[in-house]
């Protein structure tokens, strides 16, 4: 079968060789976990435990405060030390700090929900919601929200994203290789919730072993098609993935549901399977710790709330002088100025760059070479949006469709003049959205 893909995109170096052959290892149990109330897009959670409370693994410690929100649970058993504002990625958030007793006693609410066949779609949706499952690809959008489209939106396909197009990261790759049955099981649950006939699992062709293992696991389910995607960034971007699988374009300013599709990450799917089979909410995940400045790159299963520095220490610590610490991949990940922050449900990667790699190149004049235009997966003209944004002419930036930017960073990557294209487009998007809010 020919490889599926989208128009535009780039070919950054894969850099997956550090960890792609390394089986997932379980991290040493943390003595203290810091559970952030803000691990998802939407309203932060409300802590429902207080200092001195004894909690167990899987016990809810933060409740969802609105529909677009997702509860958080303890990943250890032990005593709540404090409930306070702490540093997390990108600022401060209310956190529940729990001192582990090392017993890992499981909470009474954590009981198997049986099998998909015995559950109604409403029941499955409720399990997903209560298990605090959010998009584990990085964005952290609450999964139950995606699964509750308004009735006028007809969904007919579910797509699992196994592209893992970000360089360096191999967490999804290892997951697909080591527990393919869980991924497929989760997809079957999603198919049932949305009452659709078709599910895709898209995997880039630089992971032939993962493609094989998932295909094997899915072969007895005719409604599931495992498709091989051409290795190109951003192949795993929601809209690009929908196009690759179905040739449908999500309308400008629209959501995947406007193209009749729901996209979910393979790790999210496996978490759903786990929540159904064992009743365990999302309290741990696979994360790739990699880069030139870590002694021993690894794929690890880490508990939500583990301190990032502790995780890095388990990989032999830093190698040489560290330049940059990136949570996620190098294309869309967020740089953190400190390693003293807790991991979350969306910590798919911890990437550590040396000083040389962390250097920010000096921008030169725009050549108008048009490379950013030819690779933009949203068919935009990044050079003009950026030029107007830098002149504070956000109206013009809006006319050049700044809001259609998916922030994949391909333009900044290819720019020979090393201009801060995406950075300035982000500023323009913020300004445009702020202005729209005001005028409402």
């Amino acid at each position, binding site marked *: 079968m020919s490889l599926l893909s989208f128009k535009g995109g780039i070919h950054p170096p894969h850099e997956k060789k550090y960890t792609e052959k390394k089986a997932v290892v379980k991290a040493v149990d943390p003595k203290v976990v810091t559970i952030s109330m803000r691990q998802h897009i939407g309203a932060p959670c409300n802590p429902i435990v207080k200092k001195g409370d004894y909690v167990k693994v899987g016990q809810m410690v933060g409740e969802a405060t609105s529909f677009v929100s997702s509860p958080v649970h303890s990943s250890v058993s032990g005593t709540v030390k404090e409930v306070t504002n702490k540093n997390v990625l990108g600022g401060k958030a209310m956190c529940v700090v729990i001192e582990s007793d090392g017993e890992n006693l499981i909470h009474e609410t954590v009981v198997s929900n049986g099998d998909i066949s015995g559950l109604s779609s409403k029941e499955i949706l409720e399990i997903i919601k209560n298990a605090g499952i959010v998009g584990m690809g990085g964005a952290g959008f609450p999964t139950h929200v995606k699964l509750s489209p308004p009735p006028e939106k007809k969904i007919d396909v579910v797509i699992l994203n196994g592209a893992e197009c970000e360089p360096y990261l191999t967490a999804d790759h290892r997951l697909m290789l080591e527990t393919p049955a869980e991924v497929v099981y989760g997809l079957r649950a999603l198919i049932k919730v949305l009452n659709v006939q078709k599910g895709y699992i898209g995997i880039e062709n630089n992971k032939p072993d993962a493609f094989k293992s998932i295909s094997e696991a899915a072969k007895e389910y005719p409604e599931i098609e495992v498709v091989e995607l051409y290795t190109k960034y951003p192949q795993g971007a929601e809209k690009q993935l929908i196009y690759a699988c179905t040739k449908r374009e999500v309308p400008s300013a629209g959501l995947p549901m406007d193209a009749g599709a729901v996209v979910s990450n393979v790790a999210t799917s496996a978490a759903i399977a786990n929540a159904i089979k064992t009743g365990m909410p999302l309290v741990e995940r696979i994360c790739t710790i990699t880069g030139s400045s870590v002694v021993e790159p690894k794929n690890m299963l880490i508990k939500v709330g583990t301190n990032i520095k502790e995780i890095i220490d388990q990989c032999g610590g830093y190698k040489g002088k560290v330049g940059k610490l990136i949570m996620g991949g190098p294309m869309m990940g967020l*740089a953190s100025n400190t390693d003293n922050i807790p991991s979350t449900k969306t910590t798919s990667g911890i990437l550590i760059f040396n000083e040389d*790699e962390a250097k920010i190149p000096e921008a030169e004049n725009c050549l108008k070479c048009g490379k950013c235009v030819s690779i933009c997966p949203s068919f935009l003209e990044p050079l003009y949006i950026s030029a107007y944004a830098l002149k504070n002419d956000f109206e013009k930036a809006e006319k050049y469709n700044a809001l259609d930017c998916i922030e994949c960073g391909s333009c900044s990557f290819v720019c*020979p003049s090393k201009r801060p294209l995406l950075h300035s487009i982000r500023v323009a998007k913020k300004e445009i959205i702020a202005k729209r809010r005001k005028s409402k």
Partner: protein
Amino acid sequence: MESLFRVSSSPHIRSKQTVSNIMRDVVIALLPATFAGVYYFGLPALVLILLSVGSAVATEFIVQKYLRKQKATIKDWSAVVTGMLLAFNIPSTAPWWLVVVGSAFAIAIVKQAFGGLGHNFMNPALAARAMLMASWPVEMTNWVSTRLADSVAGPTPLGIIGEKLSVALPSMTDVIIGNVGGCIGETSVVAILIGAAYLIYRGVISIRIPAAYIGTVFILAFFFTGFDLYMSTYNLFIGGLMLGAFFMATDYSSSPSNPKGQIIFGIGCGVIATVIRFYGGYPEGVSYSIILMNVASPLIEKYSSSRVFGGAKK
């Protein structure tokens, strides 16, 4: 206190391609035509090329450092490219001061006065050539034949056709290898194509503008010559068409940056060049076709930008 790391907006990795890599590739791509020019026109051609490059680089340095008081970017090779291209567009008989004036004009007026690299709205070398042509027409059209030819006077094939001279046209082989009268860098089609292939291979230029340009010239010439396949093909290999299509019309800042616009731009160049060649007052129309389309480029770009992903089909 724990150590703090550097933060910046994503993406955190950049491609290896830089401005100077691109410009250096263009210089490398111009070398075959340089060797051909020096081979056919001898030492004077080499002297003019070196003078032109030297003058371009010096002008860039002086203007940036002393007039615009900014960091001089002569290390990016772009002034070298302009210097080489200007010399390529001048006959080997030209006096030394002509290229010096020409490349200084190209850099100081056409490039730096409008903001430097990426801001010129015309191809600097071609705008300078047009200025020289208007100011010193005699010096600019004093053709000699190549060192390998028997005759001393060396009218260009275009001149023979345009002015209906009673001289036999050079053979197809001669016009392809470059053994004909003409400007220093334009005569050898083979040398230019080798350089062009390198640029396309390296991803520096796309084939869109040259293909649209040359294709249009071929089709129109086929009609204008009364469906003469030999002459319409011959027409592609004479004059500055190959040099112009691959090295001048593809100038980034003075051509559209989107694919559709580039094709429209190339077709426009082809139409203007062929009409001038067959019906205009000059025997050659390549440089004027590109300059005219340079001026139209912003307009073309404005109306040729593609629909956004998920937007209505245009």
